[in-house]
């Protein structure tokens, strides 16, 4: 392994990226835009606007419940009106802006308990679930009022962080990890493919350069930009620089202001290890691609499963057990976990869970670097 040859490859790769303005924009601006958007969505989403129509088919008993429920709903900010029957309720949802229908009835026998049927539109399951939850809370509070004894309140506390934590503080670590992986993979894959198809790899192989030097030079070159990208992303995620109002411009703040309980440097280490693995993965997969489009086409195979199975969107623990072995081999999973350990738990290097994450990421990076070097075809031993 020659230092100067590695340095030459590193310098060349870095010069190429520096010249490539669109890719630089992709590296730095896109993640900031997207994390900013996600934060905005998660933090400032509006409470669902609920307009309820109530139908009573259970006589006097229903009347009592309906009144109590209506009061509780109105207390919770819901617009409530009564309609004659279920058909009218359905018509109101279909045509006149009601979002939810509440039918108070019995399941037949006169002494049987009352039932409350909630009717929703059905087009937006996630949004409607929130509305049903509103009704459930109203039922609980109505029941409490009726019985005269307040129901016990449920309190929630957590080992790490607080339960009322900004949703973005769990999401931000996942996003930082994912972006580093995603962009580094694409840029390396495409760039190495150009090396293969443009004839420069053939030429490089006719020099004393070794495969290991190529992989190392690439890793350093792309690693440098990944490092800067991650630094910018982490600063952006953690920072909240307040810019005061200036003339007609309102005051605003730069950065997502995510609280971090651990050392940002450790978070940084996690992501850099992940990105190093992504460089080698890009080199490795470029072997199987003949065009740049095909590098992009690997994304559904390589990146989408990681996205789904690494707790970025869905908590890993709720994934079907049949998928758990797959979860265990997703590098992104360890990065996301490691980042959460640092961001939320405030873990330092003494925490076993974080140690495991770092070790797995390092092993994965070394593994892909090895197979990447092996796939740089050269018969010379």
């Amino acid at each position, binding site marked *: 392994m*020659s230092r*100067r*040859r590695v*340095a*030459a*490859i590193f*310098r*060349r790769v870095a*010069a*190429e990226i520096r*010249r*490539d303005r669109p890719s630089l924009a992709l590296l730095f601006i896109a993640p900031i835009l997207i994390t900013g958007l996600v934060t905005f969505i998660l933090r400032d989403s509006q409470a669902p606007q609920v307009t309820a129509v109530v139908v009573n088919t259970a006589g006097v008993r229903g009347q009592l419940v309906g009144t109590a429920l209506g009061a509780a709903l109105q207390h919770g900010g819901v617009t409530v009106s009564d309609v004659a029957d279920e058909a009218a309720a359905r018509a109101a949802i279909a045509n006149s802006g009601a979002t939810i229908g509440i039918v108070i009835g019995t399941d037949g026998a006169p002494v049987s308990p009352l039932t409350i049927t909630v009717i929703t539109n059905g087009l937006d399951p996630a949004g409607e679930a929130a509305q049903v939850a509103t009704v459930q809370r109203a039922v609980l509070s109505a029941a409490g009022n009726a019985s005269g004894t307040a129901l016990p309140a449920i309190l929630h506390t957590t080992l790490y962080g607080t339960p009322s934590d900004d949703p973005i503080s769990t999401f931000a670590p996942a996003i930082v990890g994912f972006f580093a992986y995603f962009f580094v993979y694409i840029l390396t894959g495409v760039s190495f493919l150009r090396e293969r198809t*443009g*004839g*420069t790899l*053939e*030429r*490089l*192989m*006719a*020099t*004393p*350069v*070794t495969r290991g030097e190529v992989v190392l030079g690439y890793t350093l070159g792309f690693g440098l930009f990944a490092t800067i990208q991650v630094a910018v992303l982490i600063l952006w995620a953690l920072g909240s620089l307040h810019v005061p109002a200036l003339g007609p411009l309102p005051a605003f703040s730069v950065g997502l202001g995510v609280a971090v309980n651990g050392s940002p440097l450790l978070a940084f280490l996690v992501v850099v290890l992940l990105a190093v693995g992504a460089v080698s993965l890009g080199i490795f997969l470029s072997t199987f691609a003949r065009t740049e489009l095909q590098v992009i086409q690997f994304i559904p195979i390589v990146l989408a499963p990681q996205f789904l199975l690494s707790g970025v969107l869905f908590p890993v623990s709720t994934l079907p057990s049949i998928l758990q072995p797959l979860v265990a081999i997703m590098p992104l999973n360890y990065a996301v976990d490691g980042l959460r350990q640092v961001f939320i738990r405030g873990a330092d290097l003494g925490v076993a869970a974080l140690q495991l994450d770092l070790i797995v990421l390092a092993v994965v990076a070394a593994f892909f670097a090895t197979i990447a070097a092996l796939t740089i075809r*050269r*018969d*010379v*031993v």
Partner: protein
Amino acid sequence: MAPQAVPDAPGGNVPPAIRASGLVKTFGTLRAVDDVTFELAPGRIYGLLGPNGSGKTTLIRLLAGLTLPTAGWAEVLGTRMPSRQNLERIGYMTQADGVYTALTVAENLRFFGAVFGVDGDEPAAAALAVVDLADRRDSIVGTLSGGQRRRLSLACALIHRPPVLFLDEPTVGVDPLLRVEFWAHFRTLADAGTTIVVSSHVMDEADRCDELLFVRSGRLTARGTGREIRARAGTTDLEQAFLRLGGDVAVTR
């Protein structure tokens, strides 16, 4: 233009610069290089002639150790190929340009210089002078014309002043004036001891070589000076000889 004086074939005491023995390379059932044996003397220019797909590039790749032979062996400057160490003494101008289009001319040269352990501006400047690109040294390669890229590609193969040069169709797209200068430079290099193997489809270039190697379907079909080849084919026109010898059986010596 008259061919340059041809030095006599080396005596037994000068070891050959390049040796091939029973070289075979197959791709599936295709025999791209088929039992090629020769010795090439140092300080001479060898022209590799043959139709498209006859195996010229594959033969050069075997000699440079970029691919493993199916059978046989190749040796460059006394070292069996493939040998990474030995690549320091070999310059290979690929048939594709093989230069980095996002970098400038100077950056390409500095890069290939660095991987060969050549430092400083002097070697790059010298290589640029040969290909007459000094005024474009800070241009991004992507903005150069096809012939200019070809010239840069040659400069990158010369940067470390290798004693053995493999040039795969070096003058494709290069204008006639510069072509003449290229060949003059090749001759200067050969006179200084560089062994040059150059593939070409251009017959007037072939005439500037000290010796010609005719390849057909992976086989070496004829070898000799331009004059010998003409005599053997019974024609005064090298192009005619090329066409006639194309189907000949191996006439190696």
